[in-house]
């Protein structure tokens, strides 16, 4: 069965080809069957592979299809590697992707670009699968650029509105900055270690480079640059909130569950490099902690329900970076998995809400949807509970708790990182339940325009289940001690730090749980009990100024505008008129003027010419006589 590994990415690519070439002539049912079916088959194959993989005691399997290029001593092959890390990624991409595809068949039903949408989505899934299966960094980079392209195409899916096109370009250009850094990192790795094959590269790196050697630092920092761009972390986070211009299933699949976590995957995949560069690894943790706080505060003030979720995604990826930074590799992947479940669920729920409220994005114009959309409400509530890490029962609790514990106990972690994570947890539950209370409680403001059908509700229910039970694969020592996930990952990652005193862990868990619950309680007081007080508080001048600042995402957009965009445009304006050419233009002007003067002497009168010749002769004879 292993030999069919290539089919997992090949099926969505085939779906893309069919839809791209013949999509216009196919009926909507066929398009939906091809689009969702190809991903569904991939999911099925992944399932079979997973069973076999676990059966074979986690043996890494590599399938080489053909040699991609061979130039001199360099060769890259199209080959896929299956190990625990890529299997988890595969599972999330194909399963969550399949559910989102099913949802999309109904969500996009009345869109004229139906087949175009599924073609892009399939291309995305194929590229993303290539990215996670690649056994060399060059193939990984191909997938990396592929998902970037699909992200661009799908953000600008409704291209008739220029604002969507602008958002797509912004996402493309900002992530390109990170991609460039990553490409330079690949050059550096190849120039110094002579290979791009990931396993080989990690071996050579740890054999040839000392811990903290400048080359290791540079390589890790450049790869981090790529990860930061793709995963929308500080300082390249500005593109993700704008990326919400795309259709909601796109936000769920690309900008929450899969593509934006490619950076996390990259760092986890090359974790050997990062352990060789402790300074860069600390930078990963600090970037993660700073991003999760910054994005959390911004999420608190957003009114657009999708932008709340976008900032929340940035913040949750910040948690994953924090985990990577303290060496809790499998905790990061665990949070990636649970986050994919509950964030995809929340986005899909928000998509239903937006459709049912006449394309209204502002939560404060909605309200009272609890009774109107009961299934959406309950699933959304479960997703929110998981996002807020409601203790014991939700998946988000187990993954976030693991990260917080490791941030505290890891030798590279510490009190400050833990405190940042804890504060982030409080903000998370506050903004999450602000969203729930404002959207689903209170008075009904807009009449319902549609009811979600079966194909939309089913993915919600499945994802809601996964957001609850997805956490039980890794129970901490204090609560059942069932480390299934981390032992599954142990073939890829070095064992994380020894578990210290159980009582300390218990204490921290209780603190974290209290913080999460108090965030929910706080939101309840602010938005259900005393909304009048909240409004008055928000209207006070200093609070209002702060709110505006956070609403604009800490002013990063205007900062970059002033620092990069405006100078660039003014330079472009100067360059437009070719300043260097003006020197040559001067020569041309001089010649033209001289020509005009000289052509005046050509009068056509023969006597004038004769006189000219005579004067010339006299002058030259004079010169000759004087000189001799």
């Amino acid at each position, binding site marked *: 069965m292993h030999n069919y590994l290539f089919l997992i990415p090949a099926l969505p690519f085939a779906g893309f080809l069919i839809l791209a070439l013949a999509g216009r002539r196919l009926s909507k049912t066929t398009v939906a069957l091809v689009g969702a079916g190809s991903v569904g088959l991939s999911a099925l194959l992944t399932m079979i592979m997973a069973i076999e993989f676990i059966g074979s005691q986690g043996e890494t399997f590599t399938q080489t299809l053909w040699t991609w290029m061979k130039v001199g001593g360099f060769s890259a092959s199209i080959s896929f590697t299956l190990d625990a890390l890529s299997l988890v990624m595969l599972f999330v991409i194909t399963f969550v992707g399949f559910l989102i595809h099913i949802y999309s068949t109904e969500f996009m039903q009345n869109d004229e670009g139906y087949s175009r949408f599924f073609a892009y989505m399939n291309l995305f899934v194929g590229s993303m699968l290539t990215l996670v299966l690649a056994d060399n960094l060059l193939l990984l980079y191909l997938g990396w650029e592929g998902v970037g392209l699909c992200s661009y195409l799908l953000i600008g899916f409704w291209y008739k509105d220029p604002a969507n096109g602008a958002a797509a370009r912004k996402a493309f250009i900002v992530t390109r900055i990170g991609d460039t850094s990553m490409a330079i990192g690949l050059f550096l790795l190849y120039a110094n270690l002579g290979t791009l094959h990931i396993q080989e590269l990690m071996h050579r790196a740890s054999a040839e480079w000392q811990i903290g050697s400048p080359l290791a630092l540079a390589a890790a920092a450049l790869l981090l640059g790529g990860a930061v761009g793709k995963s929308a972390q500080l300082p390249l986070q500005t593109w993700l909130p704008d990326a919400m211009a795309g259709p909601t299933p796109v936000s769920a699949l690309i900008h929450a569950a899969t593509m934006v976590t490619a950076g996390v995957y990259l760092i986890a995949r090359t974790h050997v490099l990062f352990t060789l560069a402790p300074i860069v690894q600390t930078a990963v943790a600090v970037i993660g902690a700073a991003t999760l706080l910054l994005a959390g505060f911004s999420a608190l003030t957003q009114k657009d329900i999708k932008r709340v979720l976008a900032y929340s995604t940035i913040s949750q990826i910040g948690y994953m970076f924090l985990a990577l930074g303290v060496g809790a590799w499998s905790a990061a992947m665990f949070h990636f998995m649970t986050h994919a479940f509950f964030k995809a669920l929340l986005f899909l729920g928000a998509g239903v809400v937006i459709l049912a409220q006449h394309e209204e994005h502002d939560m404060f114009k909605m309200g009272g949807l609890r009774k109107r959309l009961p299934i959406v409400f309950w699933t959304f509530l479960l997703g929110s509970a998981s996002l807020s890490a409601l203790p014991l029962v939700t998946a988000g609790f187990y993954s976030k708790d693991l990260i917080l514990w490791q941030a505290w106990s890891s030798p590279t972690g510490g009190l400050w990182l833990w405190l940042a994570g804890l504060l982030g947890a409080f903000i998370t539950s506050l903004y999450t339940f602000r969203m729930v209370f404002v959207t689903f409680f209170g008075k009904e403001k807009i009449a319902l325009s549609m009811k979600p059908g079966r194909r939309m509700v089913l993915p919600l229910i499945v994802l809601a289940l996964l957001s609850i039970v997805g956490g039980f694969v890794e129970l901490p020592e204090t609560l059942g001690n069932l480390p299934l996930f981390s032992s599954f990952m142990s073939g890829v990652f070095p064992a994380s730090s020894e578990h210290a005193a159980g009582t300390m862990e218990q204490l921290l868990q209780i603190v974290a749980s209290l913080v999460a619950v108090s965030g929910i309680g706080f939101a309840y007081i602010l938005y259900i009990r005393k909304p009048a007080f909240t409004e008055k508080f928000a209207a006070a001048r200093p609070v209002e100024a702060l709110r505006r600042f956070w609403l604009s995402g800490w002013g990063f957009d205007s900062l970059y505008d002033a620092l990069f965009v405006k100078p660039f445009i003014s330079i472009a304006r100067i360059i437009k008129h070719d300043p260097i050419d003006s020197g040559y233009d001067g020569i041309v002007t001089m010649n033209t003027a001289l020509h005009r003067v000289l*052509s*005046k002497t*050509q*009068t*056509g*009168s*023969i*006597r004038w010419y*004769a*006189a000219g010749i005579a004067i010339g002769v006299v002058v030259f004879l004079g010169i000759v006589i004087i000189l001799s």
Partner: protein
Amino acid sequence: MMATVPMEHGLILAALIFALGFVGVLVRRNIVFMLMSIEIMLNAVGIAFVVAGARWGQPDGQIMFIFILTMAAAEVSVGLALVIQLYHNLKTLDADAANSMKG
């Protein structure tokens, strides 16, 4: 020995005649007179050659004059043909009227 004319006198004469002919070319507008002035200039050059030949007792100067004479005959035939064409086209002999080829 015969009293010889000093060379300077001959050259001054040639220069005077050349200058007269040149002034004629410049001031005359009638193209026939301009041609005649050019003939005068050619003859002035001829005198200069003959004088120089006499000075060094060489025949070259007189041979050059014969050349100039033949050349002048050819030149006049071409020139007169041009004059006839000019008159034919412009109905005038004014050289300044033929000034359409300018800058």
